């Protein structure tokens, strides 16, 4: 009996040790993560400039729906989301399958080359893109020299093309990053599965859709959720390439939050409200993606 008692106490002891180990992290998360989140939630019910904040109830949330700038920012962000994320995911998938080919020479070189954009600084690459896509920039010169276009495209000053430029930029920056996830999980797929499929006479396309895609599903889900979140928080590229222009046509929600806090007379209350709207949108989108992917487990 006494041994059993002792055993329990050891268990409790080791539990306590375990909790002590995690407690530091837990406390830090509470102090620096959950507490500020809660404060921000409170803040989102206040409004006013600078220090003159006043409790205004749900006024801020009502204001969201009549705020044309916010709605424009939301629309822009969703356009980026709907167009850019699928393009990037498919491209990353495609490239990773190519790179996974065992007969490919210089694999390391290609892998590094494609991943390299992901380690460049967001600001640095944005500035370079801005100059590449300027009206008299390299891209226009190139396109004109190969006679694809007659007059330069206003990549940055036209509302439509400005969005295209932003999409090209973020695709360039993040495709390699997502590719690495696919590549690593592709290497975990047992080669014998493909072998068996080949023996059964499955074509490469069939193998891709029948084996690769289903086995990569969890990773595809993961990358599409992180990419969705990333796109909703898009900031650096827009600020540096187009400054949200021309006329708010590339403005992202994050940039609007920044403008509300720092560019205009700072209204941190309303800025917090807009931030919380992103939280809500991310939760809804993540939920949808889980549902669509059918991963209820």
């Amino acid at each position: 009996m006494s041994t059993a008692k002792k055993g329990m106490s050891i268990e409790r002891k080791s539990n306590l040790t375990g909790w002590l180990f995690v407690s530091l992290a837990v406390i830090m998360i509470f102090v620096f993560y959950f507490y500020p989140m809660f404060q921000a939630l409170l803040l989102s019910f206040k409004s006013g400039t600078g220090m003159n904040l006043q409790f205004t109830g749900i006024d801020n949330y009502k204001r969201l729906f009549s705020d044309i700038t916010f709605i424009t920012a939301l629309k822009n962000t969703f356009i980026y989301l709907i167009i850019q994320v699928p393009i990037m995911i498919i491209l990353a998938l495609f490239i990773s399958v190519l790179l996974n080919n065992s007969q490919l020479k210089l694999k390391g070189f290609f892998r590094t080359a494609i991943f390299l954009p992901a380690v460049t600084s967001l600001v640095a690459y944005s500035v370079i893109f801005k100059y590449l896509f300027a009206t008299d920039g390299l891209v226009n010169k190139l396109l004109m020299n190969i006679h694809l276009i007659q007059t330069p495209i206003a990549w940055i000053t036209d509302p439509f093309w400005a969005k295209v430029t932003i999409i090209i930029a973020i695709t360039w920056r993040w495709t390699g990053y997502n590719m690495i996830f696919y590549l690593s999980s592709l290497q975990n797929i047992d080669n014998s599965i493909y072998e068996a499929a080949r023996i059964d006479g499955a074509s490469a396309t069939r193998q891709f859709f029948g084996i690769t895609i289903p086995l990569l599903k969890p990773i595809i889900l993961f990358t599409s959720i992180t990419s969705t979140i990333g796109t909703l928080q898009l900031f650096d590229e827009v600020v540096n390439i187009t400054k949200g222009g021309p006329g708010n046509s590339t403005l992202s929600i994050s940039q609007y939050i920044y403008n509300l806090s720092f560019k205009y007379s700072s209204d941190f209350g309303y800025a917090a409200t807009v931030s919380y709207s992103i939280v809500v949108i991310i939760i809804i989108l993540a939920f949808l993606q889980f549902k669509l992917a059918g991963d209820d487990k």
Partner: protein
Amino acid sequence: MKKFLTVLLASFMLLTACSNNTNTANEGGGNTAAPEAGKKQEITVWAWDKVFNIGAMERAKTVYAEKNADLTVNLVENAQADIIQKLNAGLNSGTTKSLPNIVLIEDYRAQSFLQAYPDAFFALDEYINASDFADYKVGPTSYDGKQYGVPFDSGVAGLYVRTDYLQEAGYSVDDLQDITWDQYIEIAKAIKEKTGKDMLTQDPNDLGLIRMMIQSAGSWYLKEDGTTPNLADNAALADALETYKRLMDAGVVKVVSDWSQFVGAFNSGEVASVPTGNWITASIKAEAEQSGKWAIVPFPTLPNTPSSVHASNLGGSSWYVLNVDGKEAAGEFLKETFGSNADFYQTLVTDIGAIGTLKAAASGEAYSAADEFFGGQKTISDFAAWTEQIPNVNYGMHTYAIEDILVVEVQNYMNGTDLQTVLSNAQTQAETQIR
């Protein structure tokens, strides 16, 4: 994801700070005695632009060192956007430890700081006399009857023109003196026809030109109270936008999207004129080959607004003292330099081309110097004379918020929407935005 975390953490830290509204800025408020002689003191100054603003401060430091060697002045260069962020974050957090003693704030933004953070700034009425400065500078730098800022550089606007292009098109500089924008457009068309050059550059995202136009008529985006949007029934703004559309439709404008393209366009001789603030002089002169080919004429007036004068302003900033320890020393320092010292302003003009707004400085020697780059024109004394005519407007708290709304609506107007619709849309949005 990592970026997300960092941004989230940073912003939440900042947001939490806002809820603790304990204002420590007032601590030490009882101590108003002048700094005792022989006591070592240190103050910190934040400003942007190494050559211009920091350069001016460095010279102020030298001048003041002769009077009071006990004061150490630390100059910290920050980008303007960073200063705004740090000030907002610092003032909201209630801790003034990380803040400087003196900070440079753009006039367009000054009111948003003075009103959003009452008690955070130190009134300078005991140190400087507001009437010593150009009238138009007093509005933005004072609040609630008190003078908070020491007015610094004049953003007085002029029309920089290429005399050689004018000649080619059959005009002389005299034809451009005191013109209206309509006359300007006619000349622009002639120049385009004869030389193939555009008249000016314009960034559709930057309505500086509109701001200059309406200020020349003594009007602004906001009513005189500085908080009510004044867009829908603003005759000067309507006139400015109509003029702007005529200008854009005339096919004489080179569209740019940022500062470097703007500078590049006149440095490479692609445009025949630059209507902007006098601070552009240094950039114009950067292209030494164009020496003698430029002249500066008074800013054009709005064609259908009788109150419009040949003087306006773009940008410009002033020095503010924060209500923290060392404020008296900082006030004293500004009083002896930017606040009253006309000789010091001569140094600023000669060394860095900074035109101040101290009225007494205009009679100084350096102000009447002729500039060979501008064909021997006495540019500084011209600018100083125009500075005195700039209409005083209240920039209020929301210049940039309204401009962002207006940029979108102006684009709609350019694409054919009716002007009155555009302006009343902008008015409605501004009213929602501003509370």
